[in-house]
């Protein structure tokens, strides 16, 4: 190991300068901004915690927060369950592994914009191929464009479809790293495939599931494009999520102070959710151990 000399500093300088300039300093500045009143073309005025008070007493913020928590939880849980299922399917062996991987990874390669466009077209009430098929099966017209819960459901569906490849790869990598010998020993002892899954795969997969959950929860919290392009937060701001609330506050209403406060609430919120899950899972894991 070398000690950090001048060459070493020079080699890491670009990373740290870039991150400081583009991410770290701006995010600290946002905290400062959140304590001031600010809008287009006016000076900053110190207002203390007023922006936070303002945001926290805004019913629109709470609706956005509730929507976000509901959708994010739905997305992440469904994704992880599906990912485990697909990983088990892949672990069982398949004939054209490269081709199947390529197919499963496909949604990862396209833009969220196209993902929304595709599903919007397929589910378009009255003209979409899937929505008409659902109608033909006798479930009636699924008109998500006027029903906020359905619209959020469609956003969640798009988000799951779009992020499942990433989640699957994380879970699959975890499953591949479970030593083969454990399964061989279990088979010698006469364990069925079902028992092997519940007694070996799942318990040994817990760390990978944990990492995936935290990753996905934190990332899903940023949910913007899927909802924005589907409904623009409408009708009547009923389908807003926190990122849209922030975007509207800043770039539409010009309330930078409040948007900055929302930003920090978002940071704290996503970390808090991750922390709560971590703590909860950790406790459960300890409880399960004999």
């Amino acid at each position: 190991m070398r000690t950090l000399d001048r060459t070493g500093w020079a080699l890491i300088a670009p990373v740290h300068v870039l991150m400081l300039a583009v991410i770290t300093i701006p995010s600290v500045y946002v905290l400062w901004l959140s304590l001031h009143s600010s809008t287009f073309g006016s000076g900053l005025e110190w207002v203390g915690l007023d922006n936070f008070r303002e945001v926290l007493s805004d019913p629109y913020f709470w609706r956005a927060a509730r929507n976000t928590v509901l959708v994010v939880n739905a997305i992440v849980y469904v994704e992880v369950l599906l990912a485990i299922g697909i990983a088990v399917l892949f672990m069982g062996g398949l004939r054209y592994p490269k081709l199947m991987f390529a197919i499963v990874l496909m949604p990862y390669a396209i833009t969220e914009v196209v993902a929304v466009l595709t599903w919007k077209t397929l589910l378009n009430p009255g003209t979409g191929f899937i929505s008409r098929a659902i109608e033909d099966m006798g479930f009636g017209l699924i008109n998500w464009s006027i029903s906020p819960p359905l619209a959020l459901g469609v956003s969640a569906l798009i988000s799951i479809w779009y992020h499942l490849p990433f989640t699957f790869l994380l879970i699959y990598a975890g499953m591949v790293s479970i030593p083969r010998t454990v399964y061989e020993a279990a088979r010698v002892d006469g364990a069925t495939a079902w028992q092997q899954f519940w007694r070996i795969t799942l318990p040994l997969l817990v760390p990978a599931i944990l990492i995936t959950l935290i990753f996905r929860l934190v990332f899903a919290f940023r949910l913007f494009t899927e909802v924005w392009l589907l409904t623009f937060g409408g009708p009547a701001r009923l389908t807003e999520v926190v990122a849209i609330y922030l975007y509207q506050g800043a770039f539409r209403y010009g309330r930078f102070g409040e948007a900055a406060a929302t930003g920090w609430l978002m940071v704290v919120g996503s970390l808090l959710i991750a922390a709560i899950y971590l703590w909860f899972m950790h406790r459960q894991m300890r409880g399960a151990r004999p």
Partner: protein
Amino acid sequence: MTEVLRSAAMPRSTVRRKARWQRQAGRIFVAAIRQVFFLLLIVWSLVPILFIVISSFKRQTEIFAYPPSLFFEPTLQHYISLWTSWDAFFPTMINSAIISVSATALTCVICLMSGFVYSRYSSAFLGLSAVYLIAIRLLPPIVITLPLFPVVNALGLSDTHMVLVLLYTAFWVSICTMIMKTFIDEIPRSIDEAAAVDGASTLQLLWRVVAPMALQGLAACAIFVFVFSWNEYLFALIFTTTDAKTTPLIIAEVMDTPAGTNWGVLFAGVTIQLIPSTLLVVLTQRYLIAGLTAGSVKG
């Protein structure tokens, strides 16, 4: 008990044959179920994308025909109209290409250097800053758009390729540094010593020896950054208006004017847009998976 009695009543060979048959039937059943699930998986992942791609070759009237026709006379009409009538589309493709390639190259160079340092040097600063690099990635990107927006405007960087290149690079250098560190960790240190004995400087060692051996890691980083930059929407929406507008933006714009949307032309544009990133992911999946494993182990 009854099982024993019954088997005692039957000739032994029949019992064995029956058991074998049951086992085999069970195996066939499981195999069939697996095939069904694979089929569902293919439909789920592929059909939405195929729908758009196939529709781009259909005549306008056939696109929304129900039930959708599988056998139709393919037409290139939409691709021709895309070229002749939708002037704004191809410049955005060029913008996207310039921005994605620049961000990818910049990230690879920066992270080769930093990954090398995080792998080969030791200091308290490196240990602490590695945690900082990972932690800062948890920050929602939309948060930093607020302070950057006025700064970018003041610097005259708004609506330039540069602003998106810097943003995309900044958001990937942290994770790519860790990916490169993992890959460079795999290169034996004895090679460094051998190079030093031969009189190579640190920079020569990095470019001539380490870089070629860490190509896998660089490939993984390049895929992540390129796919992200090619497809990114939020930053592009906030920081570009006309000159540096990227393809996802223009697709989104056209999609939201339902009355006058020419769906065929839009689908043709989308098909062209998704080719580069899809090909990249499909052809280089090996590196993608290796990079993801390297990143998640550390992250």
